[in-house]
């Protein structure tokens, strides 16, 4: 039978993208001079000179430990080395996307029709904490990538500062040590892998407290991999780990005072001291107010009614409270602050309310009727290829969200450009800061206008993807995707055309799916382009060019 000749099920479909061992096109040796985001400067957190911390005898012992490890590497350990040799920044970005997809599920309604809210103090209960929905994820992606980037900028600063104390990697010092990862011509102290393992894992543990075991193991694997690969000694690793943890602490500290951050590897421990006059930005960016209350939800509806408009209502059964109505007040990257020190080092300053799109067509207008009819025609006549576009970009519950999708797209370009770890971290930091800003801007707009979805105005409109549980105007997908196209086009100008096409397709997908009006996607798109341009303006002056 012909059927027997068909290709059959193969379990080895590859759970990760194609990544290759990273040999950077340029090691970016001067990255310690680039502009930091949240650190006041790359040397805000000091780490000791390795010449002082490691006597010659200790150093030789550390080299022996590497040789010993290399002499008995298991197949598993070799796989771990291979896994991390494609670049830690790309790996952590992937792993992060997995966590977002895992935690992007809405709470189940209570029997009485009310909804519980995820509780960070009770993360294992039902509902699980967090609900990594798109705005939550956009913020999370930005913090983690900023922490990773700032930590690497600091690592690069100290690599340069202490290069005469510690110029060479273990495999360069001792011929008996093999280099099992691609060679990178950078001083090994502090280890960049250990630095990012500390920064990223400490951030992820705060964001995903029930995944601490998995995160801790991955971070330890990354540090072990560089030691087994002959790339870094215990001292290089301990210093990097402490530095990375210190950067994460600076961002997430929930109290002020002096913190001791400890990095340990093998027999070596390095303690850093960090004094904070204010709580971390992660704790003070106003996310806490994003959920709102029954009274604030009602006030949103009342405000729309007062303007003579039909207010948004949830199309879920039972009606679900709107998703993070206060997210529009969360601090953006480039926020003017007012606090001392300023919230971040980003210029130009972004005032979200000043960028808010003009009002959508009134719910009672002829223009709205026309736009509603257009949505209805897509609902009735949607083609298979349009459905394919709807599903390609849906990125709904249970997925890594639209920001995650664009990280997925960016990964390939960052890989192909062979960016150094620090430049790759910069790319993801820029991209995800723009996503966070786009999400805040979009949410501010959505809840300012509180406009209904097409299916609310015409109950006969059925959709080919789930209707998101928040107001329609403007489209989050359009805002995020336009911001993505702006930042990616800056980073990879030769692909501008492609990024714009993809962003337009993502934006249109929401109209094809009958969950957005044309006004939502068009205004969202131009809003997102504008917000993305702020990040691009910053990137043009950050010293990395």
């Amino acid at each position, binding site marked *: *039978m012909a*059927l027997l000749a068909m290709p059959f099920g193969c379990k080895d*479909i590859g759970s990760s993208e194609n990544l290759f061992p990273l040999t950077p096109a340029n090691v970016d040796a001067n990255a310690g001079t680039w502009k930091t985001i949240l650190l006041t400067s790359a040397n805000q957190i000091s780490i000791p000179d390795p010449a002082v911390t490691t006597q010659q005898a200790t150093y030789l012992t550390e080299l022996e430990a590497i040789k010993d490890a290399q002499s008995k590497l298991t197949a598993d350990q070799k796989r771990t080395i291979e896994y991390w040799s494609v670049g830690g920044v790309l790996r952590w970005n992937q792993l992060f996307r997995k966590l977002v997809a895992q935690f992007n*599920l809405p709470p189940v309604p209570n029997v009485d029709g009310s909804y519980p809210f995820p509780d960070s103090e009770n993360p294992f209960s039902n509902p699980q904490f967090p609900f990594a929905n798109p705005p939550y994820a956009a913020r999370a992606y930005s913090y983690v990538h900023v922490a990773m980037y700032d930590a690497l900028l600091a690592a690069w600063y100290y690599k340069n500062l202490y290069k005469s104390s510690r110029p060479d990697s273990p495999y360069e010092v001792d011929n008996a040590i093999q280099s099992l990862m691609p060679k990178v011509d950078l001083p090994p102290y502090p280890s960049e892998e250990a630095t990012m393992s500390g920064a990223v894992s400490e951030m992820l543990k705060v964001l995903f407290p029930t995944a601490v075991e998995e995160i801790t193991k991955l971070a330890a694997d990354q540090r072990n991999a560089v030691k087994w690969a002959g790339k870094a000694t215990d001292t290089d690793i301990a210093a990097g780990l402490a530095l990375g943890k210190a950067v994460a602490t600076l961002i997430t500290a929930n109290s002020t005072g002096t913190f001791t951050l400890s990095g340990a590897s093998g027999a070596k421990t390095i303690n850093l001291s960090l004094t904070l006059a204010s709580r971390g930005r992660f704790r003070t960016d106003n996310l806490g107010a994003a959920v709102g209350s029954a009274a604030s939800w009602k006030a949103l509806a009342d405000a729309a009614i007062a303007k003579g408009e039909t207010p948004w209502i949830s199309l879920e*059964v039972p009606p679900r409270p709107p998703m993070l109505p206060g997210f529009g007040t969360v601090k953006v990257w480039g926020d003017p602050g007012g606090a001392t020190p300023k919230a971040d080092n980003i210029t130009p300053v972004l005032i979200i309310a000043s960028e808010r799109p003009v009002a959508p067509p009134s719910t009672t207008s002829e223009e709205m009727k026309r736009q509603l009819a257009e949505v209805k025609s897509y609902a009735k006549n949607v083609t298979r290829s349009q459905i394919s576009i709807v599903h390609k970009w849906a990125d709904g519950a*249970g997925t890594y969200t639209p920001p995650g999708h664009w990280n997925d797209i960016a990964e390939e370009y960052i890989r192909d450009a062979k960016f150094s770890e620090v430049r790759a971290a910069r790319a993801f930091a820029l991209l995800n800061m723009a996503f966070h800003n786009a999400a805040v801007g979009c949410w501010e707009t959505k809840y300012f206008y509180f406009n209904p979805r097409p299916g609310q105005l015409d109950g006969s409109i059925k959709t*080919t993807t789930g209707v998101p549980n928040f107001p329609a105007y403007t489209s989050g997908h359009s805002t995020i995707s336009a911001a993505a196209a702006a930042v990616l086009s800056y980073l990879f100008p030769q692909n501008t055309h492609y990024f714009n096409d993809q962003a337009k397709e993502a934006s249109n997908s929401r109209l094809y799916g009958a969950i957005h009006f044309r006004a939502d996607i068009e205004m969202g798109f131009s809003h997102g382009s504008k917000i993305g341009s702020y990040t691009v303006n910053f990137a043009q002056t950050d010293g990395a060019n």
Partner: protein
Amino acid sequence: MRPTFVFIILFLLASRASAQTITDHLMMPKKDFCTGFLYTYERWKDYWEGAQKRDNQNIGTLITSQIMWVGNYGLTNKINLIAMVPYVKTSATAGTLAGMEGIQDLTLAIKYALVKKEISSGTFTAFGILSGSTPLTNYTPDYLPLSIGMASTTVSPRLTATYKLASGWYALASAAYVWRSNVSLDRPSYFTDGNIYFTNQVWMPNQFAGFYSLGYNKNALQVEFNLTQQNTLGGGDIRKQDMPFVSNRMNSMRLGVLGMYYLPKPKNLALRAHVSYTLNGLNVGQSMAVMGGFLYTFHFVKNDNQ
């Protein structure tokens, strides 16, 4: 062959010519062609999210209706060729999601009578069947529970054994292993079974399919009780408040009752009805399905038995 025996064969064939044509114990004689249409209406309100049974007010009741063309041709007295093509339509009574409809998968099967033996007062028969299915249209499997199918190409070897008493009582057991090809999604990444996959390809776990029946038939009436078992050999559970996913571990055990009547006139026309209900399951809806239809047999060769 005695005329009554042929009558019973035709009668039974007609009665089971859905997926059951593949699982049953009957053969079309050489150059006979049996064909017809069967309509199925299936609905569920409760479903198993993993092992947890629940309903979903944003789905309400999920309704699937299907019209299937079926044909069975006797290549020889020992080899039958079977083909089926359904048109499927789905809808949900609540929520906002649009239903889907279209031509689903072509199933082709070849059925071979391996053994036929008289044992005491009955007849033991064994069949070997090789069947396969493949989507005829480019429908999406990534829109469950409203997708019209799984979009996987399958190949499935099956063994069926049956014992029938001269009095009309019979028992049958049939088991198949279903190889399923990877399916493609319209999106570049998905999360299932605790992992994220950065590809549009989905590995589909293979399945075990069992069918067991006890029945009686005499003259124009047949009654049968049957159990249909589907065990998916791998795959993840639907997560809490998530949508189902194409490679989920979808298991079910269904109890069915078949009632059937062979019309005295017009000759060669059979009517049948089948009702079934999901007793137990994982990651599937607890559905009630009602099927009804007709089958007509053409004799391309006059033989002594007509």
